[in-house]
């Protein structure tokens, strides 16, 4: 076993283990950065495969994306600064079934498909070839994806900003109670004489 094989097994182990821990941790921030660790290991595996651009690009794209993801999750959730522990799993049974099915399908493809025996030629220039592909035949696909992502980001910023299009976003909003039907958590108690809202007591 060469050191490249060894590095592959170690990195693959890190990727799978940290990917699993994403769903076992109880914090949005830790989940984001465990996912980042998983992606970094995958990026290093891509470097081992000779994808010098895609591997390194994965590092910086995932670093920015996971940081932004953690930030937006904290901004959207009623969880001050992301410090309160919370369950990171929704619909666990459906997710588990989907995960197992997807894993079996991918594993079956990897094991059963008939891949062509074609090692990378020595003179190959992966960076140049990728650039030609991105700005050549596949330009429409990638540009559409890029514009869609940009529109999504702008939408998220508009939705999460306090100074929204229709005035301050928290005006008239009511934080959920600590127990079902309870008093709003963290909100100052309003006396009935000054408050304009009808409170269901």
């Amino acid at each position, binding site marked *: 076993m060469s050191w490249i094989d060894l590095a592959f097994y170690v990195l693959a182990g890190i990727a799978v283990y940290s990917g699993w821990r994403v769903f076992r941790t109880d914090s949005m921030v830790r989940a984001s950065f465990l996912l980042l660790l998983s992606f970094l290991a995958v990026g290093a595996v891509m470097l081992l495969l000779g994808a010098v651009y895609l591997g390194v690009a994965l590092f910086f794209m995932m670093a920015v994306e*996971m940081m932004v993801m953690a930030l937006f999750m904290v901004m959207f959730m009623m969880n001050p600064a992301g410090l309160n522990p919370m369950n990171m799993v929704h619909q666990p049974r459906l997710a588990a079934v989907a995960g197992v099915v997807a894993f079996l399908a991918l594993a079956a493809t990897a094991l059963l498909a008939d891949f062509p025996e074609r090692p990378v030629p020595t003179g190959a220039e992966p960076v140049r070839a990728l650039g030609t592909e991105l700005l050549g035949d596949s330009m429409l696909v990638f540009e559409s994806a890029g514009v869609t992502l940009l529109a999504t980001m702008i939408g998220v910023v508009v939705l999460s900003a306090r100074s929204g299009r229709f005035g301050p976003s928290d005006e008239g909003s009511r934080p959920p109670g600590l127990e079902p039907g309870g008093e709003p958590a963290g909100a100052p108690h309003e006396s009935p004489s000054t408050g304009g809202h009808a409170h269901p007591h």
Partner: protein
Amino acid sequence: MTEILLPTIVVLATLLAGSVVVAFLDHAVAGIIAGSSSRGRLLAPLSRAAMLWLRPDSTTEHPDALLWRLAPAAYLALAALGLAVVPWSADFVPVTLPTGIVLWGAVEALATVVIFLNGWGPNAPLPLLGGYRHVAAGLSYILVSMFVLIGVALPAESLAFDAVIASQQGLWNLVRQPLGLPLFLIVGLGLGVWGPLRFADADDLAGGTTAESSGPRRLAWALARTAMLVAFSAVAASAFLGGWLGPWLPGPVWLLLKMLLVLTLLVLLGRVLARVSPERFVGLAWLVLLPLAFIDLLWAGLLAL
């Protein structure tokens, strides 16, 4: 064995020696600006480091101990990663990577994550505020840096640092793209949490991400910050000042001289630039610096056509 050992020693020794140089430079510049009162205590930076080293460590209630401990080490590792792809001469490059500039972009992005984690680790309000502040600043300056670096890669028609240096044989990028280095220096201040962009560790947050750390932990953080400045100076020298190119002297000496020049500039800027609040910096970055970076990229693209 030597082909692994020698680059490792060169990179680590440069980071360590460079950090000591930055500490002395900063001390000297502060002394000159404030009058010569502190010039007598020449060894003050070293004695301050020794004092931090000897002071006991402390902890907080329910810290994220692993991430808190890893953050300074990862910051230092990122500085080493960035410095490793910078060529020292035509035939001595610690790590040859055809996408060295993209790797430096990754170092900048991951540094933001690491600085945030240093604020997240202690599980305390002031460090966390410092961490979130740096995220806002970091997400703003990373974009500026990206456009400036694409501008550098355009005339070289390559993402490798040796090609970028070779493209400056006739004329440095400093002259060819006059907006590049000034914008990139601001990125460097942010990357090292330095001077006016010291939002994460700011005094108005009682030390921000370092508010709860003491002793060797704090020394490690200070070392990692200066080491990141040293790595940045090597990248800036290679991207805008022709790297190891130069007459008479050997390549590594030229690189070191240019790194020293960039470090002096950074330290000077760190002491004389006006400090702005984080909110105003984010506005400045998106409304002024980013459009300037667009102009820089357009300029570089039109020249390269």
